């Protein structure tokens, strides 16, 4: 299951990786850490139950513990050892869940866990009293996802965690207050869009290189560089990185995200998540680092973002917003210097990533403290806090100095190495100086706004005297990184082992310059000095500077985005309209038009016009045809409902005659009977409606007629082209030859219905049964509605009928006869036209007649009187199915016919099956007559009882 020695095995097998390898630390520890994170998240709800907001301390301890667990692993990294573990996941894609700890990962792992611990320790005093389970769970889950992201050695796995960070960020931003949702959405949509770019890139890479195992891909850049997909992939990767790391023009979401609570801003949107983009760029440096286009793109966008962000930061009054823009700017510097890709540049990138995380997290936490204590983050409302909060002031000063790049802070070291790195840009001859210059410009602004932060909050006269220094527990989490920033300046050397191995992961086999605190009188030193001087100058003229910046035209952040968002919704709203159209015609036109288009296209594609097959027409056809045409057109154009009905019946009769001519007597007979019943149903249905159809607007009827004609022509052509051009089908011939000996029946069609294709008949019977039930249910509902008020239905026969007595007498005579006929037809069906269906229809007509005579099912004929729809349908179906399943019980296929003995007589199961059909059909007829038939008295008296009767079948 688990490939413990994966590291060894893989590395040895891998010709492209020339690193010495040894697995000292236990590889599975990496999964252990991830699982541990998940475990922490899982137990949070339990802890919050009894610790409330103090849960943060437990989590902080947990994070530190995990660092401790990882230390042995991390310790091996400087020796260029790699620890790797894999679990099977989606072998079908060749994707495994592989995690791997190398130098670059180690840096980010420590960042995630370290800063995480601080934030977690900060939460308890920042959050209000309460449980905050959601926040803690989400924060822990985010940390887990972030860990996974930097540990993943498989592209798909990396993408998975990438998305998870996005989602966690969404819920962390949006969870806080009413207005947060929109900011959260903006952040989500932009970063998710980038995520999709990453997905596309990942899939393309897998397709091109045939693997998703990151180290292999990085070890063989040519796999991508030589493929046609080199630039699509590169572009998509950059897109993903830029959205995540808020580079122009995708920066809009980051300032908005500041609505989230401070711990979230500090952790996700300053220290870690926004660095995921940088991490991605660093990861792919081995592949793209050498490409000029890559370098140029990263440099230009990065530096532009750096200056733009810094300038905007300088004009903010809200300290948190200021920090947000400063983050944008610093990320820009990181992107640019990563793009340069020389050893110095990459070292600078790593160093600055660490430095930035340290001071930016500190500043966020401190601003949060100020906010909590003074109740505001606006420099225009804050003043002189240094008198009441000296410690806070001191810590802020430390962090701000580090950000400004003033010695001896670590910010100073990283800033100098940044200048050095940018100076090495060699896209063109003049690129270096320009880049360095831009870097300096950004740094000058950085210095200015660093001062602005401190001065804004702490300088000047004290206005809020009641304030006091916050509790040490509140300050401590911020103090640690602030002091660390101070110590790590002179002591930067301690970072070297990690940074060096990290850089080696980005640029294998280069000589990596160590980080040093003092370069001597290097050009960078002068740049730093110049930066500080210029920054101070800028500070002295801050008044004019402010006016200048405030005057500068500005678009509210993300306005473009919001416009697009609203636009999309408007468009969508418009798209929903067709789906709201009420009448059937609005939904039928589409299909009809589509069909016409398709058919016409097909006929055009066919090179020749269809020709009639010889001998398919007989002389007798034509008179029938004429009648048919006349009746049909008449039925279509008739305005009076009754006329239309009559013509429709005429059409039915002619069609049935046509079937008789075509040698299908069963069909003809059935159709005839069906026509009768359909007519009855139609009459019953329309008698409560206006006796004229609504008029049709002229233009519309013309269009409709046009469509109809075209479709008619197409249909005719299709019939010509597709029918009658071949001999009788194999199956058809078989039936004619063997039907008798297989089934003993002479009426082949009937043997098909109850024998060869009994399954079709079973389905057909089910349909009829359900239709019957539907009728009963539907009209019971309406019946209930048609109670006093809406159009009352006179129980009894339709208006057209008169002279009841005659009917009643004839019915008394006729009914028994028809029933007998029906029985006869049923049994002879096997040998001549007839069978269950036809027989049932005959009986049904008797029922109908009885209704006409008596205004209710049955009249005075006992058998018919006792008929109910539901039992007939249910019983019939059960019979059919039992016949079918009895075969299965005998171990034969479904519906295999056999003989059974009823009362000593041999009875074919087919006959029983046919009987089932008979019952269901009768059930339908009863339902039609009983329900459509003006809901006889029996139903009427049910209205008084709203309770559902057990029997839906009709009259009790």
């Amino acid at each position, binding site marked *: 299951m688990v490939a413990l020695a994966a590291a060894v095995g893989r590395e040895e097998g891998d010709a492209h990786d020339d690193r010495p390898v040894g697995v000292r630390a236990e590889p599975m520890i990496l999964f252990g850490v991830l699982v541990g994170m998940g475990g922490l998240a899982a137990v949070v709800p339990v802890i919050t139950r009894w610790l409330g907001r103090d849960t943060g301390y437990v989590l902080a301890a947990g994070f530190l513990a995990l660092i401790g667990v990882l230390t042995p692993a991390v310790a091996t990294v400087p020796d260029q050892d790699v620890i790797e573990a894999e679990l099977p996941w989606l072998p079908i894609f060749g994707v495994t869940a592989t995690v791997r700890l190398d130098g670059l990962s180690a840096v980010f792992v420590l960042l995630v866990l370290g800063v995480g611990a601080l934030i977690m320790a900060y939460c308890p005093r920042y959050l209000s009293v309460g449980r905050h389970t959601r926040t803690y769970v989400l924060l822990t889950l985010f940390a887990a996802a972030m860990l996974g992201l930097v540990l993943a050695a498989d592209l798909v796995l990396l993408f998975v965690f990438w998305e998870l960070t996005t989602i966690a960020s969404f819920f962390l931003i949006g969870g806080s207050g009413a207005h947060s949702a929109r900011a959260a959405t903006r952040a989500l949509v932009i970063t998710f869009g980038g995520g999709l770019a990453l997905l596309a890139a990942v899939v393309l890479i897998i397709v091109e290189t045939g693997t998703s195992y990151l180290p292999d891909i990085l070890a063989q850049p040519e796999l991508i560089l030589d493929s046609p997909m080199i630039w699509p992939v590169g572009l998509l990767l950059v897109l993903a990185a830029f959205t995540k790391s808020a580079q122009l023009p995708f920066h809009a979401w980051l300032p908005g995200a500041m609505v989230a609570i401070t711990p979230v801003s500090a952790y996700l949107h300053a220290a870690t998540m926004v660095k995921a983009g940088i991490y991605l760029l660093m990861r792919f440096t081995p592949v793209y680092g050498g490409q000029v286009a890559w370098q140029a793109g990263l440099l230009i966008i990065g530096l532009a973002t750096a200056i733009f962000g810094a300038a905007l930061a300088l004009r903010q009054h809200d300290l948190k917003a200021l920090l947000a823009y400063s983050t944008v700017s610093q990320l820009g510097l990181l992107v640019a210097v990563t793009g340069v890709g020389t050893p110095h540049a990459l070292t600078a990138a790593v160093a600055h990533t660490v430095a930035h995380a340290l001071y930016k997290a500190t500043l966020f936490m401190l601003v949060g403290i100020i906010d909590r204590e003074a109740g505001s983050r606006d420099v225009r409302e804050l003043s002189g806090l240094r008198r009441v909060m000296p410690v806070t002031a001191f810590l802020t000063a430390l962090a701000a100095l580090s950000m400004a790049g003033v010695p001896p802070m670590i910010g100073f070291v990283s800033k100098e190495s940044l200048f050095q790195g940018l100076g090495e840009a060699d896209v063109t001859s003049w690129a270096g100086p320009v880049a360095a210059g831009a870097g300096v410009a950004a740094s000058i602004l950085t210095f200015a706004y660093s001062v602005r932060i401190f001065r804004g909050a702490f300088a000047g006269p004290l206005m809020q005297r009641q304030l006091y220094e916050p509790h040490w527990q509140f300050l401590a989490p911020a103090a640690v990184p602030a002091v660390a920033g101070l110590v790590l300046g002179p002591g930067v050397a301690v970072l070297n082992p990690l940074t060096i191995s990290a850089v080696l992961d980005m640029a294998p086999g280069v000589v990596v310059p160590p980080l040093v605190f003092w370069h001597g009188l290097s050009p960078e030193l002068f740049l730093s000095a110049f930066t500080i001087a210029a920054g101070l100058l800028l500070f002295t003229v801050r008044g004019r500077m402010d006016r200048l910046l405030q005057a500068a035209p500005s678009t509210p952040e993300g306005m473009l985005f919001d416009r697009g968002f609203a636009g999309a919704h408007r468009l969508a*709203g418009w798209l*929903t309209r067709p789906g*709201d*159209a*009420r*009448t059937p*015609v609005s939904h*039928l036109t589409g299909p*009809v038009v589509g069909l016409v288009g398709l058919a016409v296209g097909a006929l055009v594609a066919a090179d020749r016009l269809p020709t*009639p*097959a010889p001998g*398919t*027409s*007989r002389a007798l056809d034509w008179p029938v*045809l004429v009648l048919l045409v006349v009746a049909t057109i008449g039925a*279509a154009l008739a305005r009076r409902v009754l006329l239309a009905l009559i013509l*429709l019946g005429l059409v039915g009769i002619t*069609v049935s005659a*046509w079937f008789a*001519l075509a*040698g*299908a007597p069963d069909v003809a007979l059935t159709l005839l009977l*069906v026509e009768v019943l*359909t007519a009855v149903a*139609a009459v019953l*249905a329309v008698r409560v*409606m206006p006796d004229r*159809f609504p008029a049709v607007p002229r233009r519309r009827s013309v269009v*409709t*007629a046009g469509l*109809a004609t075209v479709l*008619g022509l*197409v249909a005719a*052509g*299709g*019939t*010509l082209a*597709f029918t*009658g051009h*071949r001999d009788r089908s194999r199956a058809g011939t078989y*039936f004619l*030859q063997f*039907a008798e000996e297989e089934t003993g029946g*002479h009426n082949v069609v009937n043997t*098909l219905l109850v024998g060869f*294709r009994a399954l*079709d*008949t079973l389905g*057909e019977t089910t*349909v009829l049964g359900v*239709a019957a039930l*539907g009728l009963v249910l*539907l*009209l019971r*509902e309406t019946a209930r*509605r048609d109670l006093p008020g*809406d159009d009352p239905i006179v129980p009894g026969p339709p208006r057209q009928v008169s002279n009841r007595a005659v009917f009643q007498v004839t019915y008394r005579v006729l009914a028994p006869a028809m029933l007998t006929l029906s029985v006869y037809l049923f049994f002879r069906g096997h040998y001549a036209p007839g069978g269950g*269906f036809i027989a049932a229809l005959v009986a049904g007509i008797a029922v109908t007649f009885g209704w006409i005579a008596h205004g209710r099912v049955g009249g005075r004929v006992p058998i018919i009187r006792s008929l109910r729809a539901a039992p007939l349908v249910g019983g019939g179906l059960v019979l059919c199915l039992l016949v079918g399943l009895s075969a299965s019980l005998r171990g034969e296929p479904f519906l295999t016919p056999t003989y059974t003995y009823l009362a000593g007589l041999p009875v074919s199961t087919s006959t029983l099956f046919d009987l089932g059909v008979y019952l269901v059909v009768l059930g339908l007829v009863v339902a039609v007559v009983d329900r459509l038939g003006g809901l006889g008295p029996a139903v009427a008296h049910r209205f008084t009882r*709203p309770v*559902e009767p057990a029997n839906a079948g009709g009259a009790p």
Partner: protein
Amino acid sequence: MSTAIAVGVLVAAGTYLILQRGLVRIAFGFILLGHAVNLVLVASGGLQRRGAPFIGQRPTDEMADPLPQAFVLTAIVITFGITVYLLALARASVGSTEEQADEPSTGPATAPPADDAPPAAPGGNPGRDDRPPRGGAA
């Protein structure tokens, strides 16, 4: 040839009717379309041979293909069932305003506020909140 013409006319008329307002006409349209399809089905067996398929009445090679006839029978019956149900639906929705109204409603936003909630408690009388607005009928 004759079949093709018949089919063409029936399809044209049927299509014309189903594109009208009012369920009754639509139902009539589908009856016509049903006839057309049945004609196609029987024709698909080849109309050169038109002997009724009863064993022993005539030489088999004159007999029509019985399979399409079986198809048609099944189709007729199914169409019958559905048509009757459609007519019942037309009957049931007499007077319901949507029946005539053709202009699309202005979107789900303006869906009837009395958004229906089926019987919440099992055992509760189902039809309860589905009772339609009174006076909707013609």
